[in-house]
């Protein structure tokens, strides 16, 4: 009852006119920032943080929380419409969202992404409200071996269930991980893989450079080739009835939505994990448990629903350690944490007792922001569909410009733009030979998390890999990952002993 009464007080604060206006403004701005290739929630929250000094701390965090939610919704839009992930959290949405758009089902993919985001966000915020302190304690028991085991599981799903050429898939994972290792060695601080002593490599290779290169430049070059340069990108129509029909049809995916929401939330609360691994793991899990895994990557709606529900649930989960323990679960929450300090609040367990209006006003605002983000997102779907109807010779240069500007903005370095072009051209040439590109993008995102987890684990165990097997949670995850890795080996045996007729 205590929680309920505190939550009702929070709603009273969230529905104050100023705070409600901040929620609507934040969701709208966040949606557009998230939809821009190269800009995600972290950019939106960071850029607009100084503007929050104009309002009281509760309004400030409500505004930033709404931007965070809006951007999480918006990330799916460019993944589906342009084939370019708006942020790393929307990478997995591209795998099936883009094929759906190319099949003329962009409206269905956008509605699915919006609805799944709403379900993920709702589940996340309910879990946040009910189980905040105990869940934070569980997540904090995860050490390096468990985190590395989770990363391995994400890669294993691509190998075991990807359906692509295994050596090419593994090559793609390895090259993505190597690119993720470029820059300064995390332990010794020494330069590593600085090709040709070019200074631009010292800051590493931003995942967006590879993602935009592959999903922007290479995708456009591929589309230009297959369409002979004069086709429409795809056909799509939209109406209120179609939106409603799509929503009704989505009820079939409720299991995937709930799975993505719970998995995403739990991964989200792990320190240093966040929404990206959450969405990728949800995608992998949905594929692993599907009766038709071969349809993933070709426009399966569950492939949109799983990552979108997970990344929104994870974005809420990432706020849990931030608020309760003062430990950010993601880069965006790290900036929110910085904002709290600037506003004169000390994040941690005491904030719940010392500033209940602030905490519960913020939690209640997440419910409201989630609803407004859904409504605003659906309201703008016709505008996004309109973009698809442009002749390709208009859309292509606009996307190329977005790619170039989007590649520049994260690091403000022209070196990254040139690198993006190289990745785009090589990615296009490799794609023509059926090299899967998604595992490389997954690897460059997870590589900087996996390497320190592996090195710390081996340091703890004195170099013994048994540390990954003699801890119950890590061991269980490793066994599942090894089974998935071994699955392609059993496929020829299965075909031999149980031939298809």
């Amino acid at each position, binding site marked *: 009852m205590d929680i309920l009464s505190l939550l009702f007080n929070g709603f009273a604060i969230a529905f104050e006119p100023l705070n409600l206006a901040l929620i609507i403004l934040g969701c709208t701005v966040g949606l557009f920032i998230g939809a821009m290739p190269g800009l995600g929630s972290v950019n939106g929250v960071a850029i607009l943080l100084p503007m929050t000094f104009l309002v009281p701390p509760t309004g400030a965090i409500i505004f930033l929380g709404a931007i965070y939610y809006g951007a999480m919704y918006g990330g799916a839009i460019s993944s589906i419409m342009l084939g370019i992930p708006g942020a790393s959290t929307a990478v997995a949405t591209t795998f099936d969202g883009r094929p759906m758009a190319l099949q003329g089902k962009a409206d269905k993919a956008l509605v699915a992404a919006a609805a799944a985001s709403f379900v993920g966000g709702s589940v996340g915020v309910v879990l946040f409200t009910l189980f905040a302190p105990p869940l934070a304690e569980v997540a904090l028991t995860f050490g390096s071996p468990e985190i590395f085991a989770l990363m391995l599981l994400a890669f294993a799903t691509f190998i075991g269930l990807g359906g692509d050429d295994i050596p090419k898939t*593994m090559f793609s994972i*390895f090259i993505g991980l*190597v690119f993720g290792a470029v820059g300064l060695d995390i332990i010794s601080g020494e330069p590593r893989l600085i090709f040709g002593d070019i200074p631009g490599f010292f800051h590493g290779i931003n995942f967006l450079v590879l993602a935009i290169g592959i999903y922007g430049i290479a995708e456009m070059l591929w589309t230009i080739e297959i369409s*002979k*340069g004069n086709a429409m990108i795809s056909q799509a129509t939209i109406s209120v009835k179609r939106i409603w029909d799509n929503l009704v049809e989505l009820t079939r995916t409720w299991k995937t939505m709930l799975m993505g929401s719970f998995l995403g939330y739990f991964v989200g609360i792990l320190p240093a994990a966040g929404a990206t691994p959450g969405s990728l793991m949800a995608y992998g899990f949905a594929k692993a448990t599907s009766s038709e895994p071969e349809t993933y990557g070709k426009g399966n709606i569950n492939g949109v629903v799983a990552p979108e529900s997970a990344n929104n649930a994870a974005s809420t989960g990432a706020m849990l350690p931030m608020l309760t323990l003062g430990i950010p679960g993601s880069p965006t929450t790290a900036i929110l944490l910085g904002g709290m300090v600037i506003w004169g609040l000390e994040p941690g367990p005491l904030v719940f007792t010392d500033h209940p209006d602030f905490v519960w006003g913020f939690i209640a605002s997440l419910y409201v922001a989630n609803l407004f983000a859904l409504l605003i997102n659906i309201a703008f779907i016709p505008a996004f569909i309109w973009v698809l109807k442009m002749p390709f010779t208009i859309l292509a240069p*606009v996307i190329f*410009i977005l790619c170039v500007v989007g590649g*520049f903005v994260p690091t403000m370095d022209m070196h990254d733009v040139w690198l993006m072009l190289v990745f785009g051209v090589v990615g296009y040439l490799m794609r023509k030979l059926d090299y899967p590109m998604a595992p490389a993008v997954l690897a460059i995102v997870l590589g900087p998390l996996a390497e320190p987890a592996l*090195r710390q684990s081996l340091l703890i165990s004195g*170099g013994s890999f048994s540390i990954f097997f003699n801890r119950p949670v890590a061991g269980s995850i490793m066994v599942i990952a090894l089974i998935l890795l071994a699955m392609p080996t059993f496929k020829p045996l299965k075909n031999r002993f149980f031939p298809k007729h």
Partner: protein
Amino acid sequence: MRMAELVMSIFMGAFSLYLMWKSAELPIGWIPGEGPGGGAWPFWLAAGMLVCCFAIAYRWAKRITPESRSEEVYMDSRALKLFLLNVGALTALIGLFHITGAYGAIPLFLIFYLRFMGGHSWLLTGTFAFVTPIATFLFFEIALQKTLPKGFTDPWFEPIFDFFY
């Protein structure tokens, strides 16, 4: 297509060897008290890449993959022309960012692409070439305060920034 599959595996195999050599500039073995050396992670990953390249070449020789059996042309003359035109235009766009800046490069790229590659009217081309840089400027420089390269046009923007700030 068949020859391209082999050439790609050889090229990527050579790149893997280069990555292994670069990684070995840092220790790749176990350092007592410190754990694996800084080069170990990329070195063994690059070694994994090399093994994959051998596997791809082996499957090519055995004609296991569709690409290794395909007699199709990897890129016909029309595809090659489109590829070179687009990559060339993109290279020019990025190169012009250094010289004329984003707000000179974007209209020039749009004029080339819309008018000469797309065959659109001057009215549509001019509208896009005029509106796109303005929208880009307002969104990135004013709303998000992200500065794009301006090349030699940098001083021209001072009065505009004075107006906004």
